Each structure stands twice: as structure tokens, then as C-alpha cells.
């Protein structure tokens, strides 16, 4: 209850100010059916609340995001986390960001092997690749005449030497032979090199991600294609996704996997979509299946129904949240 009151207090305070805000409060219910005999079936009910606050003073942006969860039944998980809190200054051809933030690095749909800046928030959901913990750091982006950017990033990392990781990133877009976006990153952490590209040819998006860790002489790579068919049955769009993941590190996730997915976007007023995925682990000859349906009720309530199943467990999930 303390968590809910905190969020409600923050919400009412900001309404009186000129802050931009956005948030949600909802309930998440997961039912786990294990196929392993010594693990019992369990149901997890959780209250979740998040709020984002943003204040812009001409070239300066102050941003914060607070996230909280609390399990209702067994109280195994509860936290109130300042997951993002940064100050950004934007000049004509550069910007500087100081504080805790989340970055997205990658191009693939299923899993981003180059998305290493933030650690995953496994306490929230170990199956959600987008659940990440904010990282404390400093980012300097310099923009060239053609809008390509050179970034220098220094961040706190407990697993790195001297608790510091540094990154040098070059990103850009081109529109010559085909429309494409690219990023190349060098990192001091495990002496790594990363890159991710997207390329558009007609109605298809081609993607590649690559990560090489010089310290351990291991690599991870992924290639993929996403093709969209428009105007299926009135206004619906159907995207077909095919991705392949490969690594020489046998302890990594998606060491030799194929992902086949499809997303039906209804293009209705409820922004409904249905995603179906199948992952084959070629090393073990095992399959994982997933199905997810998202829709909106009364404009303010976003609803998600999902089902994930693999050799060990089946997870049924209902999530409904009020957005403001």
C-alpha cells in the first residue's frame, strides 16, 4: 500500500506543477505450470506502478522514472526504484547526459545481443528482454554535418575493472543504395566490439547484430528479416519475422536458435495486436512457443494476455493497467 500511496502522492503533486508526466498502475497475474516434478505450480499476483516526469527548460531536459512492484500473495518481491534520473543538455551539434538512464542498442525482435549497456531487470521479469535497470553514467554525443553521431559513454559497472565501463559509438543513417541505419561500438568491458544494422528493401527489413568479446574470444551474432503484408482483411497488417542466433559460447542464451514469429496488427482504435512466436534450440532440439495479445479497453486501460511454454514450464499471464 505504501508503494501505491507514494505513486498517488507524486501524481497529485505533479498535476499542480507544469511537469510533463506519464504513468500507469495495474495488476499482473502469472500462473506457472512446471513440468519438473520437484517444482510446484504457483500463481504470482503483482501490483505494478510506474511514473515518468519530464521538465524541459529550453536546451535542458530533466527526466525521472520511478518503478515499483509488490507481490500481493507471498510478498516475495517488492521495490520502489528510481530507475531513470538524468539531466540532458542539448547544444547545436552536441548533447550531454548525466545520470541514470536506459539505452536501447539493437535491431532484432526476439533478443538483442548488443543491448549490453543496461542489466536486465530479472527481478521484475526474467522473460522480458525490455525490462532493464537504469545505469549511472555520462554520455556525450557529437553530431556531424550529415547527422551521423559520435558518442563517448562512461558508465558505472560493478563487473568491470575499476567499476567503470567506457564505450565509443558511431551511428548514422544512409539513403543511397537502400535506406539503412547502422551503429558500431567499441567497449572497454571485456574488450568488446558491437555492431547492429537495419536495411530496408521494398517491404522487408533486414537486420544484423554482432558482438565480439576479445577477452573471452567469444562471439554472438544474429541475422533476421521482417516482411510486412499490408491491408490483410480490411486494414490489418501482417508481419512475418525470421531470425537466427549463433554463438561460440555454450553458456549463453540463444547459442544456436531459430525464431519464427508473426505479428497481426489490427489497426483498430484499441491498437490491438496478436504475436505468435516459435523458437527452436538447434543444439538441444527443443522448442519454445509464445502467444501474446494486446488491446485497450476504454482508452485508459491497456491489457495483455500471453502464454509462453518450453520444455520446463508453461506460463499464463494477464496484465491490465490504467494509464494516465
Amino acid at each position, binding site marked *: 500500500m505504501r508503494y501505491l500511496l507514494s505513486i498517488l502522492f507524486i501524481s497529485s503533486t505533479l498535476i499542480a506543477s507544469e511537469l510533463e508526466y*506519464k504513468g*500507469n498502475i495495474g495488476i499482473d497475474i502469472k500462473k506457472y505450470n512446471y513440468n519438473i516434478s520437484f517444482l510446484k505450480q504457483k500463481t504470482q499476483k503483482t501490483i505494478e506502478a510506474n511514473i515518468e516526469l519530464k521538465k524541459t527548460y529550453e536546451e535542458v*531536459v530533466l527526466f525521472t522514472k520511478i518503478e515499483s512492484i509488490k507481490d500481493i500473495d507471498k510478498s516475495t518481491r517488492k521495490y520502489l526504484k528510481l530507475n531513470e534520473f538524468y539531466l540532458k543538455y*542539448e547544444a*547545436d551539434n552536441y*548533447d550531454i547526459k548525466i545520470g541514470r538512464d*536506459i*539505452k*536501447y542498442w539493437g535491431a532484432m525482435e526476439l533478443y538483442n545481443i548488443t543491448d549490453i549497456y543496461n542489466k536486465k531487470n530479472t527481478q521484475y521479469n526474467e522473460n522480458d528482454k*525490455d525490462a532493464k535497470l537504469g545505469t549511472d553514467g555520462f554520455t556525450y*554525443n557529437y*553530431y556531424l554535418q550529415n*547527422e551521423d*553521431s559520435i558518442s563517448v559513454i562512461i558508465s558505472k559497472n560493478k563487473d568491470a575493472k575499476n567499476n567503470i565501463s567506457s564505450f565509443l559509438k558511431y551511428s548514422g*543513417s544512409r*539513403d543511397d543504395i537502400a*535506406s539503412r*541505419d547502422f551503429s558500431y561500438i567499441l567497449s572497454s568491458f571485456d574488450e568488446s566490439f558491437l555492431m547492429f544494422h*537495419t536495411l*530496408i528493401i*521494398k*517491404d*522487408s*527489413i533486414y537486420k544484423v547484430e554482432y558482438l565480439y568479446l576479445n577477452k573471452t574470444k567469444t562471439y554472438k551474432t544474429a541475422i533476421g528479416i*521482417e516482411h*510486412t503484408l*499490408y*491491408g490483410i482483411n*480490411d*486494414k490489418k*497488417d501482417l508481419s512475418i519475422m525470421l531470425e537466427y542466433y549463433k554463438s561460440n559460447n555454450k553458456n549463453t542464451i540463444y547459442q544456436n536458435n531459430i525464431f519464427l514469429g508473426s505479428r497481426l496488427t*489490427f*489497426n*483498430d*482504435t*484499441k*491498437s490491438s495486436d496478436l504475436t505468435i512466436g516459435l523458437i527452436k534450440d538447434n543444439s538441444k532440439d527443443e522448442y519454445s512457443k509464445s502467444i501474446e495479445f494486446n488491446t*485497450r479497453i476504454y*482508452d*485508459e486501460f*491497456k491489457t495483455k494476455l500471453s502464454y509462453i511454454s518450453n520444455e520446463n514450464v508453461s506460463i499464463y499471464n494477464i496484465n491490465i*493497467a490504467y*494509464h*494516465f
Partner: protein
Amino acid sequence: MNKILSTLTLGAISLFAIGNIELAKKSDALSDGFQSSTSNMTMTLINSAKQKTIRQMSSKTLEGQNGDMSLMVFLTPADVKGTKMLTHEHINKDDDQWMYLPALKRVKRIASRNKSGSFMGSEFSYEDTSNNSWEKYTYKGAVQEVSIEGKRYFKGTRIPKDKNSGYSKQITYSDVNTYLIYKIEYYDRKNELLKTAIFKKWNKLDGVYLMGEIVMTNHQNSKKTILSWTNQKIKLNLKKKDFSKRKLKR
């Protein structure tokens, strides 16, 4: 007398002999020269049972000779607040388009070759919301003068040059005095009437005509969408860099 008659006849011929291209250029010219603009947009989606859903956005546009650049920010519904769409239009090739998803901090490239996809679940397609420069069409037949509800309009037929257009042809109706577009009838790839757009509330701002409202009726599913603009401002000295990928993450 013969000279006077022949002058009058020639005058009448030239009045009625306005060509499709000339008409399209004149209509286009009325909305050209805004340089850059900002506005708030409200989209009212009305289903066949007359139930309404309202969406709000803010937008800014930079006028360009080879296509406009635009940045649209979704303000409602709350779960998509802050989602941004950046479009770099091109006259002779596919547009560049990126979507920023704030929940993921992700900028995603969109394959924008297909123009017939629905814009935010509305009866507008992406093609309808983009710049309709006269150069994007070929023109067919002669311009006719027709009367609708006691008002005179020039009726012309245009065919999209883009092979990925959702339309086989469009029939335009422009005011005979002002050349402002009043109505467009859109025909689908099967050459059947799909939609009709009525253009209302034209505003003249600093010598440039801006649309105030479009009512789009889909005849095949009986749904309707009203797109209206408020707080329109032009000639704001916006720059190309205000429409770069960098601005999506702000």
C-alpha cells in the same frame, strides 16, 4: 462585331479550357510557401455504430523542394503518449520513416513503401496524410465544371504515379473561384469508390491557405474519421536539424 464575338468566344474557351495540370498547380500553390509549421491535431474516429474515439497529436513540418519533413508526437491515448513518428518524404522514391517508442527508448525504422496502410486505425492512409504535390500524379481527361449544392467546382481526374499507392484514381473537386480543394473521391485498386474526403475550414495565414478540417468517409465499411487542426503557426524558422533522428529521443 465579329472581332468582339471572336474575343468573347476565345475568352470563354480559355476559361473552360483550364487543364488538369494547371488546376493542380494552382491548387498546390495556394498551400505552398509555409516554410515550416506547427499545429495541434485532433482525430475523431467514428465507427459504423456512430461511436466516437478521439486521438490527439502535435505536429511540425518543414517544407522542402524534394518533399516535406514532418515530426508527429502522439499525445493520447495515455499508453502511447510520447510516441513519435519522423517522416522524410521524397518525390521520386520511397519515404524514410522512423518510429520512436518511449517505453523501450527504441527508434525503429519503418518500411514505408506501402502507402495504403491505415494511419492510427483511422480511415486515413499514410498516403492521405503525406504531401500531395501535383508532381505525384498523372492527369486524365478534361476538367469539367460541375455544380454541387448550388456551388460551382472544377472536377478533374488524377492517377497516382506511385505503384504502391492504394488508389487507382482520385477525382478532385476545386472551387472555381479560389481553386481550393473541396472534395476528393478515392477509388481503390479494383476501381470502386472507397472513400470521400471533404475539406473544410480553410484558413488563410500570412498568405498561405491551411486546411482546418478533413472529413473522410469510407463507403465500403461505413466508418468516418474527422481530422482537425488548431493552433496552426507557419514561417517559424524551423531547421532541417529539427527533423533529424536525434530529435526523436528528446
